């Protein structure tokens, strides 16, 4: 049975529409992964001797920092580890036990770079410990505990992906820890170090840690098995439709019609809702980067400003027109001009960027110069980047499943050479312009130049729109064909 599943997996991979892109991407990812693995391996072998040289007890020093690794691992997994997709529907009516489908699915997640790389550190490190006379049983227990944590994260990430409440809970815990740590109210390592140390000190504890991933696996198993049974189609969780009218938008004609639709699109679909929520988080990006002394230069302020005001622009705007992929043929055969369609999206982005600029006024507490950088970046975002994301969207061509709430960042297919080329000027160009004027004159000239660039972009709006419209028209058939392939 497993052999059949595996061969189906291979076919799904090699026959997918984006296979060539996939393969190239996988090769590049493979090279990067190999590089990191070698680095981690080197660290695992040498860290013991490096710490010894500094007269630190190697194991307890490592234990002190392990909690950071563990939490970071979870965060990285959330953004990078794709939860494997299995198209289970066709199997449900075939004579295959549901348990088998679920255990294959869960087993598949275990074979991942994210579960293998820790071994490249812990295995050599444990061996070095034993070679240097640490008791075998205790080292083994510690090692088992680490292994358990790895797989605990693996299945926790799976639940985070699929269950909103787990995601919220983990997010709250992580953020509150991070904030407390950042302001020095609490040092988690004080509490965590003895725990990690205990896995070594009391072998029974280390081995008991195995229960953690096993229990979580069983929970996942029963959860996913249940999901298989109560298919959405069998037990529809019908929410009564909201019927907002947004009548105040009607006076804007066709533009209002589209804006109305876009607002409904955002608030009624899981995927778009979570994207917009993420874009709000961008507002606080500056706190992270600007309170750091090394990053508090004028150029970094502008860099932060681009992200603070550009959250919606980058996360939502970057996927125009994919948000409408499910009904793109309708839009293409209705009495709609591309220009009207694009203008509505443009306004949405501009309004959101403008709102971000106003909301970001709390940065005034960190100094008016920082806010000045944010204003300049905001104007650039409105004048130039708002056009650039629309332009880039013509090449994205990734159909979006609106009902799926997962992986706001996870669509690797969205990366291709054109989007990358268009993404560059969004960040690099303003920084470059700023730097030139800042070096030759002063900071004000730098910010002013960026803002003027933005205003120029606004002034040439119609010209920009004509170009974008032309490209959308040229890409129309390819886009329609790509959206048809839901995979």
């Amino acid at each position: 049975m497993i052999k059949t599943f595996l061969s189906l997996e291979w076919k799904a991979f090699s026959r997918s529409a984006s296979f060539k892109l996939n393969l190239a991407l996988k090769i590049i990812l493979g090279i990067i992964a190999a590089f990191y693995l070698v680095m981690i391996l080197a660290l695992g072998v040498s860290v013991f001797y490096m710490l010894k040289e500094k007269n630190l007890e190697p194991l307890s020093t490592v234990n002190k920092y392990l909690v950071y690794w563990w939490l970071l691992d979870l965060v990285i997994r959330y953004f990078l580890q794709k939860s494997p997709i299995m198209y289970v529907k066709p199997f449900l009516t075939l004579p295959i036990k549901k348990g088998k489908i679920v255990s294959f699915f869960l087993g598949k997640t275990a074979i991942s770079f994210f579960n293998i790389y820790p071994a490249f550190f812990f295995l050599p490190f444990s061996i070095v410990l034993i070679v240097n006379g640490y008791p075998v049983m205790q080292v083994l227990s510690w090692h088992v505990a680490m292994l358990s944590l790895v797989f605990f994260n693996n299945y926790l990430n799976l639940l985070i992906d699929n269950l909103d409440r787990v995601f919220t809970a983990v997010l709250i815990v992580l953020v509150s820890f991070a904030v407390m740590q950042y302001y020095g109210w609490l040092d988690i390592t004080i509490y965590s170090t003895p725990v990690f140390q205990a896995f070594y000190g009391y072998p029974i504890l280390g081995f008991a840690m195995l229960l953690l991933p096993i229990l979580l696996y069983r929970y996942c198993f029963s959860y996913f098995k249940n999901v298989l049974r109560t298919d959405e189609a069998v037990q529809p969780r019908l929410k009564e439709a909201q019927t907002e009218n947004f009548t105040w938008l009607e006076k804007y004609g066709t533009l209002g019609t589209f804006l109305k639709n876009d607002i409904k699109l955002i608030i009624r679909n899981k995927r778009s809702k979570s994207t917009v929520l993420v874009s709000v988080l961008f507002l606080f990006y500056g706190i992270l980067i600007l309170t750091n002394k090394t990053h508090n230069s004028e150029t970094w302020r502008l860099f932060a400003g681009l992200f603070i005001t550009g959250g919606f622009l980058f996360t939502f705007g970057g996927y125009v027109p994919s948000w409408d992929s499910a009904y793109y043929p309708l839009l293409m055969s209705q009495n709609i001009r591309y220009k009207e369609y694009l203008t509505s999206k443009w306004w949405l982005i501009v309004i959101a960027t403008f709102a971000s600029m106003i909301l970001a006024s709390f940065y005034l507490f960190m100094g008016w110069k920082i806010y000045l950088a944010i204003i300049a970046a905001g104007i650039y975002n409105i004048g130039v980047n708002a056009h650039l994301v629309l332009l880039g969207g013509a090449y994205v061509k990734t159909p979006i499943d609106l009902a799926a709430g997962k992986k706001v960042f996870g669509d690797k297919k969205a990366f291709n050479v054109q989007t990358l080329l268009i993404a560059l000027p969004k960040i690099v160009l303003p920084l470059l312009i700023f730097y030139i004027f800042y070096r030759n004159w002063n900071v004000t000239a730098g910010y002013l130049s960026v803002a003027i660039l933005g205003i120029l972009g606004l002034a040439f709006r119609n010209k920009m729109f004509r170009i974008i419209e032309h490209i959308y028209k040229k890409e129309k058939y390819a886009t329609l064909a790509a959206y048809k392939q839901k995979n």
Partner: protein
Amino acid sequence: MNAMISIENLKKVYNGVTVLNIPHLEIPTGQSFGLVGNNGAGKTTLFSLVLDLIAPNTGTVSNNGIIVNESEDWKRFTGAFMDESFLISYLTPEEYFYFIGELRGLNKSDVNEFLQQFTELFNGEILNKRKYIRDLSKGNQKKAGIVGALIGYPQVIILDEPFANLDPTTQYRLKDIIRKFTAEKNTTFLISSHDLSHTTEVCSRIVVLNKGEITKDIQTNTETLKELEAFFSKGILEDTRRGDSINAVPFSNRL
């Protein structure tokens, strides 16, 4: 009668295989044009070309004198429902109708008035149910899509397989609506179907597509259904005579 839709030298090739090849076809204004053919005959391809959703390899489609892939002006007087990609799943049916109505220059009360003639068709399952289109059944989604295509009385209405997935009562009602539209509004319909009897009942002209080419072009009369049935079962009968078909061969002979 002048031609509403006129097709010249139209050809569509996928991977070296010609899936559609129509040297010449004219559909006059007010005609209800039925397109029948087996799976893969090119029906959906033809409609997609008329709607400019795919690009032809050669040739042109003109809709009321406008070449569809050169100007977008034909969109003002054309309505279409092909499949679920013509529905906006997160809207309620009313919102969907208003959306399309607004694009065709109708306000809410215009749309409400227009929708009244469909009370029977909707059978109380579409309007005021506080449900999003994604939560409707397949059949009701289809009804919403078809009515969406009719909003504002477009001069040309394209429906791909409108009878499939509908219950028998709705099929009859839909046929009535199509007849009413042609009689009162002189609407040009382009309808594709597998169902020969529905098509002959409602269409004044039937074109048979086979492997991308027009093999029959008949004005509907009392004999049309028989003619079509004979055409589509021809292959099977011949096979039976030659003994190719396993089912036609007596069981004992197969041993």
